[in-house]
């Protein structure tokens, strides 16, 4: 393995940025779900039920 370095300056920022990304995406998706059109939801949710056309 390559030689290791003594420390990474501001390494804790990694975790904070990662959590921020998650929270932003989570909130954005949650907001989208709230404003989602009811008919669209019903239509998409019914997809497995309409596939057997036989």
């Amino acid at each position: 393995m390559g030689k290791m370095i003594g420390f990474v300056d501001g390494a804790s920022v990694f975790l904070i940025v990662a959590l921020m990304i998650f929270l932003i995406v989570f909130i954005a998706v949650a907001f989208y779900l709230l404003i989602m059109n009811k008919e669209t939801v019903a239509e998409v949710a019914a997809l497995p039920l309409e596939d057997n056309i036989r």
Partner: protein
Amino acid sequence: MQKEIFNYDNKIVRNFAIATAIWGIVGMLVGIIVASQLFEPYFNFNSKYVTFGRLRPLHTNAIIFAFIGNAIFMGVYYSLQRLTKARMYSDALSKIHFWGWQLIIVAAAITLPLGITTSKEYAELEWPIDIAIALIWVVFGWNMFGTIYKRREKHLYVAIWFYIATFITVAMLHIVNSFALPIGFLKSYSWYAGVQDALVQWWYGHNAVAFFLTTPFLGLMYYFMPKMANRPVYSYRLSILHFWSLIFLYIWAGPHHLLYTSLPGWAQTLGVIFSIMLIAPSWGGMLNGLLTLRGAWDKVRDDAVLKFMVVGLTAYGMSTFEGPMLSLKNVNAIAHFTDWIVAHVHIGALGWNGLLTFAILYYIIPEIYNVSIYSKKAVSSHFWLATLGILFYAIPMYFSGFTQGLMWKEFTAEGMLKYPNFLETTLQIIPMHMLRAFGGTLYFIGAILMVWNLFKTAKSGSLVSDEQAEAYPLVKEKVVEKGIHWHRWIEKRPTQLLIFSLIAVSIGGIVEFVPTFLVESNVQTIPHVTPYSPLELEGRDIYIREGCNNCHSQQVRPFRSETVRYGEYSKSGENVYDHPFLWGSKRTGPDLARAGNISSKMYKDAGWHYQHMKDPRITSEGSIMPAYPWLIEDDGDYSNIEEKIQAMSTLGVPYEDGYENYALEDLYIQADSISSFLRNEKGIQVDKDKEIVALIAYLHKLGRDINVK
């Protein structure tokens, strides 16, 4: 616009269904054998090919990749065609995928009993098979994406998102964890060492559970539960939130397999935090599945297939609650290395994966043979056999786990270990292991009944190989949709969905790996820890071949109960030359990290090891360990010691330049000293070429360097 007429390929679904049934029976049968070996060593049959150490990986691989793997492909090929309203992209790719996967399984079934293994749990297969897995996985992805791109349904149903995330994440996990340096056709050394290898392995191991045993089955659940209940999923909105939260959070939780080890504390804490957070999306998914049955619970009373789904989902909920609880450090301190973990994983495997697979088989076979199930009564009997089997399996294992964990930690009023002899704790749980084997047998009988029932069902109908269907073609939109929400946009675009999924699953791994691989303070070296001598290295390879790490850990946790029993707790610097790491995950036998440390109670001389390997009952009455007479009879093969030393040097182990040229000479000097000791001190005649000599050399290296001042 006119509807297009096309066909679904049911033949490939049928083939994967047959493979699921056959490998399921094989994997479960091997499971019963290994379970029996844990209370009666006779079941090792005194054969080197069927000892517990070699069969246990065969059992786990057969169940995970053969039984459950084929079930995933069966369900995906069935549901993907119907959700996209398109035949699979290429019949040729389907066939290559099917036969390639079966060949990989056969290769595993041959190599593992031969002792050809990397030792890394659920990734034991050697590098040529690893490459084959990667290639066949690409074929699967190619076929899946080809089908998605030529679909007739614009929207990608949430089940397909789970399939896409499964595809990309399993590829990433497999490639990263399998990095190894080959030293021959069927032998390699892990690219990573010690604590880094442990982190990568359990990032892989935990997420193999997440992205091979969970996400594809959630996708299948989102398709088959509405089909079976004949009603849409309870909340499509919840399924979207479930998807993104689950794939992002799951990837971080791997370090909870390494609590109290020498993995840096911050990484352990991350594993714990994300494991707790995982309860929310996991239970969101379970509730979404169960609530799909709202207003239709009367169907469950009469329909055994729905019963399988309900109990399977309940098992999922139980194990995804138990998992986070086991990742709490205070619970983990008692549960880790015990049968509690075995109970936990089998609730998931037998309950969640097994029961859902049975339900899907019972649904699909009558559908593609255009006939009703042969015997509903047999389905119901199977359900009860499987459920009882799970209970008879899990409850004794929980008792066994609590018993082990508490006995290992119990002190007398005088401050001495109450059970200083590890064997006492093993013998105490023998009745539990018998009951566990009984539970497994019930589950197995149920599976046999299912195979008979499905065979009779297929015989009573005929396969609709090319099932006709019709749908409107998908018109490509030339006008850019304005004002459309970004998520709505992504739901129709498989490539973008793949990229976003890859980003979501990469973040956790990057945050955990980068500091552990780059920052010195995370893996502190110990100056007097030296590389393995050539003989010790050969002994280590024998230890790996025999799968000793399946029963013996090499990691003393910083508890008084462990330091008193074994010796000083383990540090990351001790394992910097360990390619691969051999910490293990279960203590059927005692920890061996201090087996070579003369100040440890675990130290035994070469004579003891000789007798113990010849027949463990000679030194340890009642031991359930198999005998290893072939180690005494067989000569070690040291023909490629030069390549092994060179490979280790390439991986960064600091042997002096040109050491490989006189490694063999050194090997025989050390072998001669052990052989002479046995002859002169113990009256045991053993040739220096014998494998037992190398194994003793290795065992005497474990923890030895810690004493050097």
